């Protein structure tokens, strides 16, 4: 494995990942055990700085204006708002206990926070910092997807094994879709037509039609030399043109590449240990993958489907988000 990665690195240096124009974006990685964010320059792939934050930071997301990073500080029971310019915590939002993942309405507010301990989705107005609503969902909610039109939020609950579709106007659950065991993440495609849900212990991805709310495809994975039980999908990202999807496979130490039209698995990219979450650069040329047990992020060149570099982070990197700045 180390050898393969080394070869990939050397290849990348030798050929300079030709044909991939890269803008300098800023990558933020939450370090679950390090209680910090690692900040990385997407062009030089160097660590710029490390920012101490609350306890056990996991899900992180840039605000829609790219001015702040919202951080689920799970053990501090709050969502922190980090000013990217001053790198100071501006606010601590009343998220409820044990926030794990969040998402933001396309208009920039409100935010939707999954509270694992309490079977709640908390809706918080980002401007007034007030809780607008707490929505009772299944046991141990985690993944939060927001439709591009802002009308629907999809929350996954890990013990109930459902994707709950919630109307953002009425805050009512309109549909419950049973998915594979321990669903952890939900992602709307950019066209709003599908919701991709990963099931960690089932080892599958369910693709749900956003209109009919029926599962149209269950994607399975098979990596040579890896026992099926270690294939544990967590993070998933679909390219804007819905040509490809990338799925972080946890302790299988690979990111799966899927043809998002046919749902066929095209490739498995070897990354670090215990890969959690994924984030594209805004130009979708690079994909960053957090490796929780090897304390690094892997950099995937999207057009080439190669892993070019691993960048050391703090301890136990978990969430990742990329700023256009």
């Amino acid at each position, binding site marked *: 494995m180390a050898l393969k990665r080394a070869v990939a690195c050397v290849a990348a240096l030798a050929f300079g990942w030709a044909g991939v124009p890269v803008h300098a974006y800023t990558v933020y990685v939450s370090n679950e055990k390090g209680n910090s964010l690692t900040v990385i320059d997407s062009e030089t792939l160097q660590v710029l700085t490390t920012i101490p934050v609350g306890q056990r930071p996991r899900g992180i997301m840039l605000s829609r204006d790219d001015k702040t990073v919202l951080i689920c500080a799970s053990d501090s029971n709050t969502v922190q708002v980090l000013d990217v310019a001053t790198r100071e915590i501006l606010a601590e939002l009343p998220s409820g206990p044990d926030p794990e993942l969040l998402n933001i309405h396309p208009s920039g507010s409100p935010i939707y926070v999954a509270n694992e*301990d309490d079977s709640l989705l908390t809706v918080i107005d980002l401007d007034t910092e007030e809780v607008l609503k707490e929505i009772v969902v299944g046991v141990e909610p985690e993944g939060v997807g927001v439709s591009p039109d802002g009308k629907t939020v999809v929350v996954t609950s890990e013990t109930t094994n459902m994707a709950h579709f919630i109307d953002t106007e009425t805050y009512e659950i309109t549909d419950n879709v049973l998915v594979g*065991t321990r669903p952890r993440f939900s992602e709307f495609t950019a066209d709003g037509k599908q919701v991709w849900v990963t099931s960690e212990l089932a080892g599958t991805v369910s693709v749900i039609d956003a209109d009919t709310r029926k599962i149209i495809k269950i994607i399975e994975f098979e990596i040579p030399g890896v026992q099926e039980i270690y294939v544990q999908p967590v993070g998933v990202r679909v390219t804007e043109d819905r040509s490809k999807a990338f799925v972080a496979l946890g302790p299988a130490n690979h990111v799966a590449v899927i043809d998002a039209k046919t749902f066929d698995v095209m490739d498995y990219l070897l990354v670090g240990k215990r890969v959690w979450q994924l984030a594209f650069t805004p130009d979708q040329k690079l994909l960053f993958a957090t490796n929780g047990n090897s304390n690094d992020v892997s950099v995937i060149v999207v057009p080439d489907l190669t892993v070019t570099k691993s960048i050391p982070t703090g301890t136990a990197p978990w969430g990742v988000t990329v700023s256009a700045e």
Partner: protein
Amino acid sequence: MAFQFPKAFRSMTKWSLECLLTVRFLVFFLCCPPVAIAAAGTDAPQEIDSARPALVRIGYLEQEVDDLIPLSRLKVKPDDLGIAGAEIALKDNNTTGKFTNQQFTLEISRVPVAGDAVAALRKLVETGHHFVLVDAPADVLLRLSDSVKGEPVLLFNISAPEVSLRQEDCRANVLHTAPDIAMLADALAQYLIWKKWRRWFVAKGTSPADKEYMEAIRRSAKRFGATIVEERSYKTAPGARRSDTGQQLIQLQMPVFTQGAPSHDVLLVADRREIFGPYLPYRTWDPRPVVGTAGLQAMSWHPAHEQWGATQMQNRFQRFAHRFMLPLDHQAWIAIRAIGEAASRTGSGAYDPINDYIRGDALELAAFKGQKVTFRKWDGQLRQPIIIAGPELPVSTSPQEGFLHEHQEVDTLGIDAPESKCSFDEGLSQSVKGE
């Protein structure tokens, strides 16, 4: 300060526990619409319709036993041990049930020492409880199993760890969420081998329970390549568990008892009733780690286990029960979750579909163990990773890396299919498919 209970629990009186029980039964009756009570037989279809939730009644039978007082006050058994785990699982099932229009109830039946457990089970079955968790010694479990043989009743053994229950005495109507002694011994042995602590000096009790534990330990040593350098029996009859001057005496006794052993890496204690084992750490003649039934131990769950999302389970449990979650609580929790999962996947409240699903290939459960847990087809045992822990913190989880298995590494723990002596008898085995 291992297993120290929060203040709220330590001050919990019997009165408040009785209140809890009363509330429990009130909730039970309030939750049962009269129509559903009338349809108690399993043959009556309990299809889901929008107006009336499908009802799944779960029983919990505890045979109380005369336990020795634990040597440590920290190990005093909570009165609701296991029951609290079942109750929070019921809550979880009912949260899911809101979305699937299913409702789960729990009836708890506690049989006093020398009481009639078979009659208690009969009463549960007659009131429509066809899934019953059993917290009872092995002999009682077998009597219970035989008493409902051929009936649509599925028992979950949540506590008895005897290997024989999964081997020559296995029963088709029993699934085991409690790990057996062979799994626990293998899990510990794999960790010791991983540490390269291969030479074991054994201090063993003389009870039948300790003899059985030693059989599992010898099997593990042979399987994984450890050497038992000596087996030494602790023969002193147990006296009073508490005394004003006991400590000075023990400080002298334990070094002498462990003196003169051949060269060894660990002292492995086989003392399931805890007559002397807890006295050994820090008092051995040679400065060696103590493992086995004292010191570093193998278990299904530890109150400080926080891997794989377990933090949220621990938090929820502590808020609910006002104490830490212990192995029996988790073993009860997972049994009720299996029923809940089967109900939500089959969309049914009826016995047959739920029973078939639990025994089928599709069932997979999330148990905060880093991988799905499932039931072994050949003996009804829940296959699950086992936690290796000291008093305060988990140290590791077995199976250890490098212990390979052709299908699932977790099946390197315990009795695997090729060596199993279990064969379920004809009439009951139609839904227990071989793998």
